[in-house]
């Protein structure tokens, strides 16, 4: 009997063990491991896609690099590409440390998955992409249309509510694989695909004939995107949250990757504290005082990240729009350091 209970305990530990390990002190775990394990998109140019050398590039991967640098002093990241369907489970079971994969914050995801959204890195909206030759100018005219939806996204219920509210019907085709999702639209299986506006813009621009497709003017839902972490590690959550704020504050203060050394030396108390010339910015969140300096010198500030991945400096050339700083009329706002 004794042997049996030992066996049972070992078996149970084997099953529950990995879950328990995931709730350890993440900052310490990442430091010991020497790299941050980050869940990213399987391939969405601008927001997370591998380059020729297999390194992930994009707005979200740069947030992984920023967090890794804040903890480790250098942008050492292990990339784990995840489908929309698998991403939250991977984070829950500890396969990844942080998820930066175009994830929309919702009440259910924040409150019932054991996860938390520390910050936003892109304010998006959900929209509809159609073929221009349909002659449709707004979503009201889409009665009876077939809509392709990607599984595991908020668009699955947003689209239903939108069509129901307008009193028109639609047929959904829900596809898990990202590639099949887009090819179903381009082959004409669906009249409409729905997703975040940024993603629709990218899909349209990277298609063979962008003029043949148009994004409808209706924005059917807000879609605030940001990195996600598990909810049981406040210290790590703070690191992710304040790294995001540091990127915004740096832009606000005019600190860039190029001038960060020079700015650190300036005779300005705020700058000296922010960049770690004088102590104070690290201790409270369990990092060294030079963490902001490291992040900016390795990754750049928010506007630099935005520009090179999705903004003017990239083929996508998305406007800053509501992702501009609050002082420029946008929504990006950082609390005080």
């Amino acid at each position, binding site marked *: 009997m004794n042997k049996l209970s030992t066996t*049972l305990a070992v078996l149970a530990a084997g099953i529950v063990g990995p879950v328990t390990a995931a709730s350890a002190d993440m900052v310490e775990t990442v430091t010991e491991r020497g790299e941050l394990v980050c869940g990213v998109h399987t391939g969405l140019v601008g927001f997370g896609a591998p380059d020729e050398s297999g390194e992930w590039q994009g707005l979200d991967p740069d947030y992984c690099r920023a967090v890794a640098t804040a903890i480790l002093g250098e942008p050492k990241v292990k990339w784990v590409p995840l489908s929309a369907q698998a991403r939250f489970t991977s984070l829950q079971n500890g396969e990844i440390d942080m998820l930066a994969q175009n994830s929309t914050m919702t009440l259910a995801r924040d409150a019932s998955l054991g996860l938390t959204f520390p910050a936003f890195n892109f304010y998006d909206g959900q929209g509809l992409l159609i073929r221009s030759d349909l002659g449709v100018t707004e979503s009201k005219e889409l009665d009876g*249309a077939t809509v392709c939806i990607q599984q595991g996204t908020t668009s699955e219920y947003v689209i*239903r*509510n939108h069509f129901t509210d307008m009193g028109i019907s639609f*047929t*959904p085709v829900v596809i898990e694989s990202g590639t099949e999702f887009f090819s179903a639209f381009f082959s*004409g299986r669906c009249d409409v695909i729905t997703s975040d506006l940024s993603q629709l813009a990218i899909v349209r621009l990277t298609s063979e004939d962008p003029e043949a497709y148009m994004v409808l003017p209706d924005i059917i839902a807000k879609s605030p995107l940001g990195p996600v972490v598990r*909810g049981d590690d406040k210290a790590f959550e703070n690191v992710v949250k304040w790294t995001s704020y540091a990127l915004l504050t740096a832009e606000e203060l005019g600190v860039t990757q190029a001038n960060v050394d020079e700015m650190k030396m300036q005779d300005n108390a705020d700058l000296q504290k922010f960049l770690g010339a004088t102590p104070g910015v690290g201790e409270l969140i369990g990092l060294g005082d030079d963490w902001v300096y490291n992040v900016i010198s390795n990754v750049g500030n928010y506007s630099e990240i935005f520009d090179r991945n999705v903004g003017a400096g990239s083929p996508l050339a998305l406007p800053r729009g509501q992702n501009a700083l609050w002082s420029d009329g946008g929504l990006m706002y950082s609390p005080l350091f």
Partner: protein
Amino acid sequence: MSYSHRRDALRQGAIQVFTIGAILAMLWLVASLVRQRLEAMGINTGFAFLSHRAGYDLGESLIPYDGDSSYGRALLAGFSNTLKVALSSIFVALALGLIAAGAMLSGHASANRVARFYIRTVRNTPLLLQLFFWFGVFTISLPGIRERITLLPGVYLSNRGLNFPTPDATMWAFIAVTVVTLAATTVAHRHLRNRGKNTIVLRYIGWGVGLALVPLAATLDFAAFNMPEAGRFAIKGGGVLTPEFMTLFFGLSIYTGTYIAEVLRGAVQAVAEGQSEAAGALGLTRLQSFRLVVLPQATRIALPSTVSELLNLVKNSSLGVAVGYPDLVSAGNTAMNQTGQAIEMISIYMVAYVAINVVITKFSKMLEARYEW
């Protein structure tokens, strides 16, 4: 029963009770630990979500379902789609397997070559790849609604699927009456004949009812079908086989057909040569010897392997999620994603697939018993 026998039986029983008890205790322990851990992580547990509003639509369903229904109903709708594609594929896979096996055994060189080519190419490529291929065939290579192909009046093929007319309510009633009448007379006829009773009266009744249906049929408006009609975005009315269904249906039946063909061929060849030679010596023709001597023995050999291929087919239907077919797993994955209750959902999948496969296994046991001698 001797004393030692009784003691053995007692010991056997005790061991069984203990083993089952230990397994149940372990499951309970694991379940409660997982539950505790999930609660500590702030993840919802339990099956209460099944009665909550789902809020998402499914592309097709055999049972009435819309987004206002519960998660439980969404899963049921998904399950109905799983059954639909699995059962229809099973029949076609068996038919394909039978034809291909027949072609290989027929001795015709060209038929043999075609069958072997089919088996070699289809069996040696991954099923998922084949599903993507069929999805491409049904979405990319077929034209849009406006350029739809008209196969028959009212039967359209386009990248929205195969649309066809369906009988309306009166037609269905007529069909039902006809089928029931024919079935009832056939059964009664066989029953009486087996008992050596005179069936002439019944035969007259059957003919009488059959003849009475003819003028009735003439009064029915046969144009009263639900005809598919092309709208701006979709073909409405009538029935439809969606590209997603056809992808999975073609993929599963053609893929599984190759395995069944090999099983059947192997089974026929496994029947000892002497059996058909002996049948020949008894004066049976080749066809008679195949039907009466070889086939019953081959069926017995082929049954277990054929059934496992069919069980594989049922499980493989869950690949539908990759091509947008709203089967149980697809409907459930969305629920899992919205509620975050992965463990609960996975256990529902397990129970559902085990349930289908237990039914198939029971059915095959019944068949096996028939071929027992």
